[in-house]
């Protein structure tokens, strides 16, 4: 069947009034949970899963998929407005998004995030449609050795580009790696750093750590200062991105889409890695890298585009191989099976209605999201005018609910408060939380893949150099690491990572 006939068939399914309604319900719920910190798509989708038992498989999957990519749209909102990333993929958006809000440019930041997301989301669907089967096959070629080298490169870029002291960034990254070790060792199943506490067997939760380090710490930090409106007293200058913003963002959006799309196909953390790699890349390519961290729109447009492209691309391995690349896709796999459909190589031929219906609904859903989100920007920006004495307790409340709702454990609420205090201290002494969080996510993946590679090669380190993708990644990392020793590069790095006053 040729692609356009198929798409036509899919549009027919997606345009049925019932399916349109569920598509809208999905993206609407997705936007809401994306905005609420902590309450992520996994929680929302698992709560709504039983409700979908009584509707058609098409409507069910269309709605659940809508929740997922809808939440990616909404996810940037809290990062930009109140410096709380709802999930790891929005951590990097805080750096410049929140600074833009402080400069009174919350509107353009939100607008550019939504537009970038729309473009990336749509491109990802096109890619999914045209390239899905081929790409899925390439993605499985990524074995433990390739992942390991990609992680090494990622962590190196992270430290290299962090603002301020490289020593402090390294300390934070190391702390993140150590925190990531807590729990059952993935290779030998031995408990590590669990101190015989059952809550620690599965490791520390990402959500409580992220919300503590960013959200709670930000509140504590603000409380220390005088409680007038010093932060957002700058007048909100226009809600829409300016011509200048567009010019700056075009490149990051294009590059972010491509980067996010390809990393999104890989199992495991594609959205997170792509968002910070995009940030790193934009900072590297920028003629004015010193603006990064102080409210550069490129630092919002790139990562937000990349994580949406990754979200869309994540459907490829699920729909074509039945292999879910992340937790959300695993949940969606469950939903397919409950409805008697097995995603996999045969799905496109056995259930063309469903496959193409879902793909077509994503086009429609992305348009709905744009229409839904643009008018809301004005509303969100109004939120910044809410007095602190009301806003702060509300943020705290949502953080507590969010931390609890992910795991249903009070322990996670304490964990979040603990990291809140740690984050406040870190900020006081000039340590950045971003390297910690990303090392916490990447550290265990790095270790796991290194050890798996060693098992597979029977202890031969040459494996990393013999495989081309892996070798290229490692070579880039080495180049970055030795670059401070070479005078020309060092000058450039200093220029890129100007010390924050």
């Amino acid at each position: 069947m040729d692609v356009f006939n198929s798409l036509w068939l899919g549009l027919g399914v997606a345009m049925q009034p019932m399916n349109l309604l569920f598509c809208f319900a999905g993206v609407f719920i997705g936007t809401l949970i994306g905005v609420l910190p902590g309450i992520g798509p996994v929680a929302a989708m698992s709560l709504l899963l039983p409700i979908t038992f009584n509707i058609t498989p098409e409507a069910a999957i269309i709605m659940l998929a809508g929740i997922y990519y809808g939440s990616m749209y909404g996810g940037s909102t809290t990062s930009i407005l109140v410096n709380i990333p709802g999930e790891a993929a929005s951590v990097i958006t805080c750096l410049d998004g929140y600074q833009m809000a402080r400069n009174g440019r919350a509107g353009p930041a939100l607008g550019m995030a939504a537009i970038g997301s729309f473009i990336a989301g749509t491109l990802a669907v096109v890619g999914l449609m045209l390239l899905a089967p081929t790409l899925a096959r390439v993605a499985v070629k990524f074995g433990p050795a390739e992942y390991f080298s990609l992680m090494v490169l990622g962590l190196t870029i992270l430290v290299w580009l962090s603002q301020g002291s490289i020593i402090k960034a390294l300390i934070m990254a190391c702390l993140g790696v150590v925190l990531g070790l807590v729990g059952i060792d993935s290779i030998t199943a031995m408990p590590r750093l669990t101190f015989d506490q059952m809550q620690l067997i599965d490791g520390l939760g990402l959500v409580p750590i992220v919300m503590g380090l960013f959200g709670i710490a930000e509140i504590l930090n603000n409380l220390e200062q005088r409680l007038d409106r010093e932060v957002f007293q700058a007048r909100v200058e226009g809600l829409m991105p300016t011509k200048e913003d567009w010019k700056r963002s075009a490149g990051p959006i294009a590059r972010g889409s491509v980067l996010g799309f390809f990393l999104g196909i890989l199992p495991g953390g594609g959205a997170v890695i792509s968002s910070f790699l995009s940030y790193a890349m934009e900072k590297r390519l920028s003629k004015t890298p010193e603006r990064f961290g102080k409210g550069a729109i490129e630092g919002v447009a790139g990562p937000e585009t990349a994580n949406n492209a990754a979200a869309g691309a994540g459907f490829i391995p699920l729909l074509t191989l039945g292999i879910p690349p992340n937790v959300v896709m695993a949940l969606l796999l469950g939903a397919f099976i409950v409805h008697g459909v097995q995603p996999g190589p045969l799905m496109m031929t056995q259930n063309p209605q469903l496959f193409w219906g879902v793909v077509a609904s994503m086009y429609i859903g992305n348009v709905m999201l744009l229409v839904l989100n643009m008018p809301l920007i004005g509303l969100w920006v109004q939120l910044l005018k809410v007095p602190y004495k009301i806003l702060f307790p509300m943020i705290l409340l949502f953080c507590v609910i969010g931390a609890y709702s992910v795991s249903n454990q009070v322990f996670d609420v304490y964990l979040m408060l603990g990291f809140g205090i740690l984050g406040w201290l870190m900020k006081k002494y000039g340590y950045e939380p971003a390297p910690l969080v990303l090392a916490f996510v990447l550290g265990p993946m790095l270790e796991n893949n290194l050890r798996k590679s060693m098992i597979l090669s029977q202890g031969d380190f040459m494996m990393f150099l013999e495989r081309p993708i892996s070798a290229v990644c490692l070579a880039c990392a080495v180049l970055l690491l030795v670059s401070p020793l070479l005078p020309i590069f060092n000058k450039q790095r200093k220029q890129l990572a100007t010390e924050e006053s």
Partner: protein
Amino acid sequence: MRPASTPLARRTLLGAALALPAIGSARAQAWPARPVTLIVPWPAGGSTDVSMRAMAEAAAKHLGQQVVVDNKPGAAGTLGGATMAATARPDGYTIAQMPISMFRLPYMQKTSFDPQKDFTYISNLTGYTFGVVVKKDSKFQTFKELIEAARAEPGKITYATPGAGTTLHITMEQIAAAAGVKWTQVPFKGGAETSAAVMGGHVSATADSTGWGPLVDAGELRLLCTWGGARTKKWPNVPTLTELGFPIVSDSPFGIAGPRNMNPVAVQKLDEAFRAAMQDKAVLDTLEKFDMAPRYMPTADYIKFVNETIAEQKVLIERLGLKTS
């Protein structure tokens, strides 16, 4: 951090209070007078959760009271049972799904519960379908060939599992020990990664639950054996381990249990309700979708089975060296 002594003391007190016969019988007549909470120690939406929800619904019809599913994931599926053991009253209104990790984890690290003493076992319900797959262009046509390759070159054959210390890992090592061969486990994280690992040619084979199903049906992967007591409905041409000469049935069976010293009337009524649920068409349909074979056992059989499993796990964990000192 939670002190371990407080819940224990509380549990003992509660147990003592319910041992008084007057209270026991007063409760028994009215049981169940209110909804029963069923703790499922897995995230909502997964195969275990969805099948338990179907059973809860069917059992509720029989009990005349709702059975409310409460997801408490964590600690490899033991946090739900552990919380119940520490805090729930043994009145039958709180029960929990008991995955095999409840019997395994205590031998791997210190836990707050003792599976032998802290629970009242009610009934066993079902288990999963496991199997070994290779890539379609793999030179191994049968499971025997895979074993012989491992014999020829000890340690060279690699297999992916969804994690170290899982039933998949333990059973593969049991097979190796029985055949007198050596092969190498590569533990991945969950089922998604194991399918990708074998598809990408990174490992020789994958041992996992039926996440490989669609790829087998599409001819991308070859299923060499399944580990149930009988051949599967979906892949009837694929032999079981028993047929291949390994008397092993491995399906991580799970059932339900309540806190220790549970009201016996509630145990009996719950057992009856879940027996009925295991004959319910909606339940059987759901189980089939996830390739889970019904394996109901009444209370007495289940208690015997649990005791055997606990003893067996101790030996297996020690043999594999998974025990912490």
